Structures are given as structure tokens and as C-alpha cells.
């Protein structure tokens, strides 16, 4: 479990993280979302004690990171896959990390197997593709078989096969009861992975809610229609408090009303519809809308507690 309370970080005059409070619970994948520069990496660095908070605190399993008994057995993190000494072989990189916490060599071989780097373990990591580097970083995070795992943008640079592999890995780690905290600036990456979302923008908390709730918010109030009589429909929709927008081809999007409401409106006004369907505002759109001007939005807290 990771708990942040009023966590803030100031770099010079810029407040990179601004009073963040959240709890990341075990047994599920928590997505940490925000546009680039929102403060995700800074937050993760503070969790790991690499950067010191300007204000507030963050604990892992109830302790500050530096006070953990054996850091690697409690937290495994992949912050920046390229943050390795390129002149060192993958095996020696993992070995030198394992040795700090008294983790046996056989575990080094094990994690190399888990991430599938057996063929290149003896090679210097300088020549690794980004995908291979990501796998090496994940191997390092898994070394201590920790309860808490953090991944900063883990699918960057991975091919579809690699992305699928990471998704399955994160899901299985969470299924084992571990805390899995994974950041991304792309909502689409979270769609099939995260159970819970923490969304930040400009260093502030925007949303902290179950994935389902976030999705529902985005899809509730929209419909796609086709009609030969768009003038009258626009008027009726506007009168009902909605808004009609021209979409692709001959489609229109109704915002602010559900498909059921649009159907009712059309019937009672005698407007012919050729097509009517609930519009799935994509998660990506919901996310963009939510973070477009993050300061305007109040933090909303999810149903867990």
C-alpha cells in the first residue's frame, strides 16, 4: 500500500506536485494518469525517496521508503528503463542490485527468465532496444519479489506483443495480492489494465475513482444519430438542454442527452431518425476533457474507503 498525504514538490518557482493525497491499495492495478509534465514521475521519485517532498509525506506499507527494512523485498520500481550503466551487462546490472539486499544469485537468473532476456543477459545493455531495456527494468523491479510494484510509463517503446505481455504481468501481479501502481500519459493504455485510476493534472489530483466509474462518467450523456431533419432535431435537442454537433459523414453527435432521451424527443416531435445509438465517448476523450484545464476541476474522491 502506498499512501500520500498533502504531497508537494517545488522545483525553483514551479510547483510540480501540489498537495496530492491518495492511497494505492493492494490486490489491484492502479493507473496513475496525467498529461506529460503533470507530476507523475516526480510523485514516484518522492515515493522512492529519490526526491525529498517540499511538503507532505508519502509512505509505503506505513513507512517512509528509507525506513523500510529491506527496500527491494518491499518495493520494486521501474522509473526510467534507460537509467542503467550501458557498459554493464544485463546480468551484472541485476547482480549488483541483488547483492545490496542479500538476494541470492539464482533469483537473478529467475527474473531474467521471467522477462525473457536469457539470450542477451551477458551483453552490455548499451545495445539494447527500448523494449529490451524495459524488460531489464522490470526484471530489476521483480528481483526482491516485492509487495509493491511501481512502473513509470512501462509500455513506452514496446511492440504490441510486449504491451500485451506487460498488461498480463501487471494483472497477474495484482492478482497475487500485490500493490501495482503504473503511470501513463495515455488513457488507452489503461483501458484493459487498470482497476482503479488516479488522475492528476498540473500536480493536482483530478480524479481518484474505480475505472468503471470513470468510464461511466464519460459515456452517460451522449448519442450518435442519423437524421434527414437535423435542423428540427437541433432545435428540439437544444430545447431539452442538449447540443447537436455534426460528426463524420452524415452522423451527428448529441451531447448532454442520453440515447433514450434523444429517441423520446424524436418521437414526440415527429422527427425521422435513421440511426440512433449511445455514443461511447472514449476514455481518451473523457481523459482529455478532464485534464484539458485541470485547475478548473475539483478533485473527486472515489467510492473506496
Amino acid at each position, binding site marked *: 500500500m502506498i499512501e500520500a498525504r498533502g504531497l508537494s514538490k517545488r522545483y525553483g518557482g514551479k510547483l510540480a506536485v501540489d498537495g496530492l493525497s491518495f492511497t494505492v491499495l493492494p490486490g489491484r492495478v492502479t493507473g496513475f494518469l496525467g498529461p506529460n509534465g503533470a507530476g507523475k514521475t516526480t510523485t514516484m521519485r518522492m515515493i522512492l525517496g529519490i526526491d525529498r517532498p517540499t511538503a507532505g509525506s508519502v509512505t509505503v506499507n506505513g513507512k517512509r521508503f528509507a525506513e523500510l527494512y529491506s527496500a527491494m523485498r518491499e518495493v520494486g520500481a521501474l522509473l526510467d528503463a534507460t537509467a542503467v550503466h550501458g557498459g*554493464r551487462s544485463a546480468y*551484472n546490472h541485476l547482480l549488483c542490485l541483488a547483492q545490496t539486499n542479500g538476494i541470492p544469485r539464482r533469483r537473478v537468473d529467475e527474473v531474467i527468465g521471467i522477462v525473457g532476456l536469457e539470450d542477451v543477459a551477458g551483453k552490455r545493455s548499451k545495445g539494447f532496444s527500448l523494449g529490451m531495456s524495459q524488460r531489464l527494468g522490470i526484471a530489476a523491479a521483480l528481483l526482491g519479489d516485492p509487495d509493491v510494484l511501481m512502473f513509470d510509463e512501462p509500455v513506452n517503446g514496446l511492440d504490441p506483443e510486449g504491451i500485451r505481455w506487460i498488461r498480463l504481468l501487471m494483472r497477474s501481479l495484482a492478482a497475487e495480492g500485490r500493490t501495482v501502481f503504473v503511470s501513463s500519459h495515455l488513457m488507452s493504455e489503461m483501458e484493459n489494465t487498470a482497476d482503479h485510476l488516479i488522475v492528476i493534472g498540473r500536480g493536482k489530483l483530478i480524479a481518484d475513482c474505480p475505472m468503471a466509474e470513470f468510464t461511466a462518467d464519460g459515456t452517460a450523456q451522449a448519442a450518435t444519430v442519423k437524421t434527414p431533419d437535423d435542423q428540427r432535431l437541433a432545435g428540439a435537442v437544444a430545447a431539452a438542454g442538449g447540443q447537436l454537433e455534426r460528426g463524420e459523414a452524415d452522423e451527428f453527435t448529441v451531447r448532454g442527452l442520453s440515447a433514450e432521451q434523444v429517441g423520446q424527443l424524436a418521437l414526440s416531435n415527429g422527427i425521422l431518425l435513421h440511426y440512433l445509438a449511445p455514443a461511447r465517448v472514449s476514455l481518451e476523450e473523457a481523459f482529455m476533457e478532464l485534464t484539458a484545464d485541470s485547475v478548473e476541476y475539483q478533485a473527486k474522491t472515489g467510492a473506496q474507503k
Partner: protein
Amino acid sequence: MTTAAVTVRARAVPAAARRPGLPGTLRSELTKIVSVRSTYWTLLAQVLASIGWAIANCAGLVSHGVGPGFNPAEASLTGQVALGELIIVVLGALVITSEYSTGMIRTSLAVMPRRGVLYAGKAMVFAAVTFALSLVTSFTSFFIGQAILSSKHYNTTLAQPDVLRAVLLSAAIVTVFGLLAYGAGALIRHSAGAITSILGVIFLIPALAQALPNAWFADLVRWLPGGEALSPIARSAPPLSAHLFSAWGEFAVFSGYAAVLLALGAWAFIRRDA
């Protein structure tokens, strides 16, 4: 606070017998230093420069003859002290600045958040590796140098007074300079910046000091971080100039500078964001 569901899973890693600290860090740092090529290139350069200088210098003395103040131990060891030291400065800075330039420091701190332990462990491993190798080059330079000097019977032996001290201190002073660079590296965090700064201090300050009025320079020279103040270290005879401390005295001065930089580096390493 919610109580998390307690899931019991098989542990792939045995529990820690004791809190991870210095012993594990020493093993880890030894793996780090021996698993990158730059270590070998630097150490090889140190060996070649020290021994090469000993050969060239002693051969020169044999062919041209010796002047006043000649000391056979010094003749074979100045390469180690003057040149080897410069090369080790590069390695001392690199072992820590490379962590910052590659980003490895963030991984290192994420597995060993006890920064004081990490800083000390890294310094100890670097010092041990450097001192071990410097002892080898120091003795090798000495024996090769003496073998060359023996053709004109200029040579000395380890049994003579202060000769062993000169050989050992020549190895130790190289390590001291390495640690000084390590501290500077932790403070500056950029390879080129740290190396340039240290070389600047070692070369420039003694050189600039010579521009001072003679009386001032005479009072200052024994305290300077390089130049003439280094000369007593490798000599088995008293210093050439009365303005210098003895070998041990000058060694203490350099160790003092190294201690100050190590302490500043520790402060930066522990306090500053990585």
C-alpha cells in the same frame, strides 16, 4: 485506513537475515566497479604511465648522470605520484559521476535508500581497488627503476631507511587523490565538470601560487594541493626545500583536503535530490 486483504503467496526470495547495509553494498559496488570497461582502461593507463615514467626517468638518469638532490626511490616513483595520480583522479570521479550521467543513481537509491551506507560503501570499494593496484604499480615501478639505476650503482633497496615508506606512501597518495576526486564527483555530479575542477585545483593553484611574492610562496607551498608539496612523498631522503613538510606531513595535508571533499560530497549525496 482500510485494512488490506492479506494474501499469502509463496515468496521467491528468502527473507532478509538482517537489514541490508554495508556488507551487501560492498559486494554490490565491487560488482559494479569490475563490470565496466572504463575501470580496466583507467587502471591500465595508470599502470603504464607509472611504470613507463619510471623506466624513462631512470634510463635518462643513467645516461645523463644524476644531479644534486638525487634520490633513487624518488627517481623510480615520481611517475606513480605525478602521473598515476592524475589518472586515478579520473576513475575516482567517474565511479560516482557515471551513476548520475547514466541515471543509475536512481536505481541504486531505490534498492539501497540508506544513502550514507551507499556513499561509504562505494568509496571503500574504490579505495580498496585503487590502493591494491597502486601497491602493485608502486613496487613494480620501484624494482624496475632500481634495476635500471643499478647499472651505474645509483640504486637503493627496500632495506634502506625510509625507502619502504616512500614506496607505500606513493601508493597511498594515489588513493588519497582518488578519494578527493570521488568527493568532488559527488559534489559536482558531472564527469567532465568534476575531473576538470580537480585537475584545475591540482595544477592551477600550485602554478598560480608561483606568481606570488617569494616570501608568501615559501609560507604557502607546503599547504598547496599539488606541485612541489607532492615531492617529499616519494623521497627516502628529507625534502629538498626547507619550506616543505616531511613526507608524512605532506601526506597528512593531502589527506586533509581529501577528507574535506569527501565530507562535502557526503553532504551533497545524502541531502540533495538525486
